[in-house]
């Protein structure tokens, strides 16, 4: 994966696991389900050209993940190519949430006789897919649950044909359309399986005046976990978000992709505090449930969460470091709040090393409260607090016996006392880094720098926290293991960096790349 500045990434066309209508329709078409003729446009001129090629009245629809596009003016009709251009200009001016509309689907206008609703979802109780089919379809479907047929789908064999034929056979739809409708519904299960979709919704599936069966809309979400075996979909952000990925979300996703030690999830929720809020908080959770519970706790004491972050499942120190750097690339934060379940199975000192390194590099100037409860919590808290004593902000670690409610209150009082606002800045590094007086070794995603003249002072600490990596009896650092094995020891080396600094010998520095972050965070140090 090549990295570039965020603008370049956007130009490459980032796709996420939730597909736009036009992408879903292309898949339907591949599997034999008819869709209206059309194409996607990102400018009025392009829309005009497409409309001209279609040669008749067209419908224009914004490509955005929102329900009720018509209600926000996101669907327009045009009789001529010129009208299509004007309509497209208006549609491209719409913003959905914080995100401008970037594409408009231009399609032939079809004359609809009947509308049906079809969706495939997973029935968690049956542990199998199911299809919901409403023969009277269309808007207001949620009020007519009784009219919906639930068709079982077998994971390998597809939809149950008897149930399907029964549902369609009992309908008032013209007999001539029964077979093609059944075929279309059955094909939806085939499409879903072939791309490993988590859900497919066609609302409406239509019968046209001239008797054709067509998918007039399509919402499809691919299972995040299966994206790796579907390169044909061109999805490079395997995340389901309710907005197009932000620059930081893209950067975070690529960090996660490059390091499979533990899980890292990052999603931006707010860029401004809610009305009456105590402020915008950089949130760093651990574990899905623990993060959610902690988020509830911090919201309950009156804060707005800037982002959701989860580093868990025994993450490397490097991953936690990168997560902290990304969280602190958001402007206008009043504090940094970290908390997971409180009783973590993972060794918490790795997280403490990652956080301590990030906070030191950025000279953190807003309060940080981190609940590090779980295995090795005493050691973790000692590392975090001791390594951060020289920083301008209050940085406090807490144990499993400190409840989220109590530390939420503590966080609030620290934030009020500090009354500081964070702006992203570039990280500092020790002065020997990059000089000829330093020895460097490549590691995965970065470089470790050692201040050669102080090697003998640093060596006992290095041997304690990364035993066996370096030869013990040399005046300058030399590797005791092969370079490839050494490259994967980034967590141990981060421990050495932090521990050497704690002992007054700032002679080891692990420089870790976060591609694209400088361009987004910017700022002078």
């Amino acid at each position, binding site marked *: 994966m090549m990295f570039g500045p965020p603008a370049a990434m956007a130009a490459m066309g980032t796709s996420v696991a939730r597909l736009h209508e036009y992408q879903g329709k292309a898949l339907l078409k591949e599997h034999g389900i008819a869709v209206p003729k059309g194409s996607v446009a990102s400018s009025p001129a392009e829309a005009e050209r497409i409309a001209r090629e279609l040669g008749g009245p067209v419908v224009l629809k914004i490509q955005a*993940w*929102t*329900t009720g596009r018509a209600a926000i003016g996101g669907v327009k009709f045009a009789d001529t190519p010129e009208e299509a251009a004007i309509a497209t200009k208006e549609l491209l001016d719409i913003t959905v949430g914080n995100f401008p509309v970037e594409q408009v689907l231009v399609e032939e206008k079809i004359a609809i006789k009947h509308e049906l*609703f079809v*969706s495939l*979802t*997973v029935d*968690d*109780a049956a*542990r*199998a897919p199911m299809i*919901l089919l409403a023969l009277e379809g269309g808007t207001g*479907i*949620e009020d007519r*649950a009784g009219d*919906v047929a639930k068709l079982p789908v*077998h*994971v*390998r064999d597809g939809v149950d044909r008897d149930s399907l034929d029964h549902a369609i056979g009992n309908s008032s739809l013209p007999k001539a359309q029964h077979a093609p409708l059944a075929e279309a519904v059955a094909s939806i299960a085939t499409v879903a399986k072939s791309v*490993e979709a*988590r*859900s497919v*919704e066609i609302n409406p599936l239509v019968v046209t005046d001239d008797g054709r069966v067509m998918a007039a809309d399509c*919402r499809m979400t691919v*299972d995040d*976990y*299966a994206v*790796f*075996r579907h390169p044909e979909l061109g999805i490079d952000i395997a995340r*389901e978000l*309710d907005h197009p990925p932000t620059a930081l979300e893209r950067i975070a996703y690529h960090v996660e992709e490059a390091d499979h030690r533990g899980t890292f999830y990052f999603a931006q*929720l707010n860029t401004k505090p809610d009305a009456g809020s105590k402020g915008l908080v950089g949130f760093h959770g*651990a*574990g*899905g*449930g*623990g993060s*959610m*519970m902690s*988020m*509830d*706790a911090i*919201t*309950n004491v009156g804060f707005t*969460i800037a982002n959701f972050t989860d580093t868990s*499942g025994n993450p490397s120190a490097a991953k936690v470091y990168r997560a902290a750097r990304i969280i602190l690339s958001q402007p206008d934060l009043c504090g940094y709040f970290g908390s*997971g*379940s*409180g*009783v*973590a*199975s*993972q*060794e918490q000192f790795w997280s403490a090393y990652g956080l301590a390194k990030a906070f030191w590099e950025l000279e953190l100037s807003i309060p940080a409260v981190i609940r590090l409860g*779980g*295995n090795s919590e005493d050691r973790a808290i000692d590392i975090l607090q001791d390594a951060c004593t020289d920083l301008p902000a209050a940085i406090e670690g807490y144990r*499993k016996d400190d*409840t*989220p*409610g109590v530390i939420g209150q503590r966080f609030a009082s620290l934030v009020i006392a500090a009354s500081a606002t964070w702006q992203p800045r570039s990280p500092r590094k020790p002065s020997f880094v990059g000089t000829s007086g330093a020895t460097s070794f490549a590691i995965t995603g970065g470089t470790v720098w050692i201040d050669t003249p102080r090697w003998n002072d640093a060596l006992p600490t290095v041997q304690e926290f990364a035993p066996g990596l370096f030869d013990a009896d040399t005046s300058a650092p030399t590797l005791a293991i092969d370079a490839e094995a050494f490259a994967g020891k980034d967590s141990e080396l981060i421990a050495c960096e932090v521990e050497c600094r704690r002992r007054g010998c700032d002679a080891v520095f692990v420089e870790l790349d976060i591609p694209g972050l400088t361009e987004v965070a910017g700022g002078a140090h």
Partner: protein
Amino acid sequence: MAIIIDETKRVCIQGITGREGRARAALMLGYGTNVVAGVTPKKAGEEVLGVPVFDSVKDAVTATGGIDISVILVPAKFVKSAALEAIGAGVKLLLIVPDRVPMWDAMEIADAAKTAGAQFIGPNTLGVLSPGRAVIGMMGGKAESAKAWFKPGPVGVISRSGGMSSSTAYYLGKAGIGISTIVHVGGDSVLGMRIPDVALQFENDPDTHAIVIFGEIGGSMEEDLAALMTAGKVTKPVVAYIGGKAAKEGTRFSHAGAIIEGNRGTHISKTTALRNAGAIVVDGFGDLPEAAKKALESTSVRSM
């Protein structure tokens, strides 16, 4: 008694020679689990912490005279074939620890398990632990922590979150309430054993007198449990916390597919369903221990 796991169950670890496999084998053995075999293709004849390694689950079954539970600790993309292998070898209970298992793989495993009369827990589970007896998976992380954190007693814990299953059991223990078994059902959308399935097992366990649930938004497990309570199939007191009240309810919960399921999946639908069925639902996670204590008092059972 406990449910699912105790010291008598014969356990196999698939992927025992890997990094995760070794670490979790140490936890399970150190806590008292009867780990009788490990499986890694082409590693037959090796030993991990004294546990013999076999090429296949079938070989392990033959050599040891039977496996009750197979714990799967292989990378996510190999989980399906590992699970189908264990089911094919006649193992009746699987614990699928890894996360990121593709959903259609999980559904295929479910189909094979149903046909074979087998069950599974997970994917994406920290495991199951019966305090003072045995553990499968990685709950507690290390044997010494697991021994220190979890106390035996009358409450069954079911959680949708791994971290919060440990956390829930730990805070109950601190409040003087012991646990019969802690079950993390897993964090994915397609799970083998769901909250209602586990609740039915606790209902039949003479040593469990109350059930504590850490639920979350999404899916229908909490509502299904409420239905079992209303139907009189789960009669022991249920205490629950549902996480995710502050989470944004995005389009995932507002499109028609979810809505025509009958307003299921939201925080309010879960808390309402459980309350109407007679459960105690607390608003703060920190309120769970006191509510559990009250529930136990109603059954006149001592909390440890």
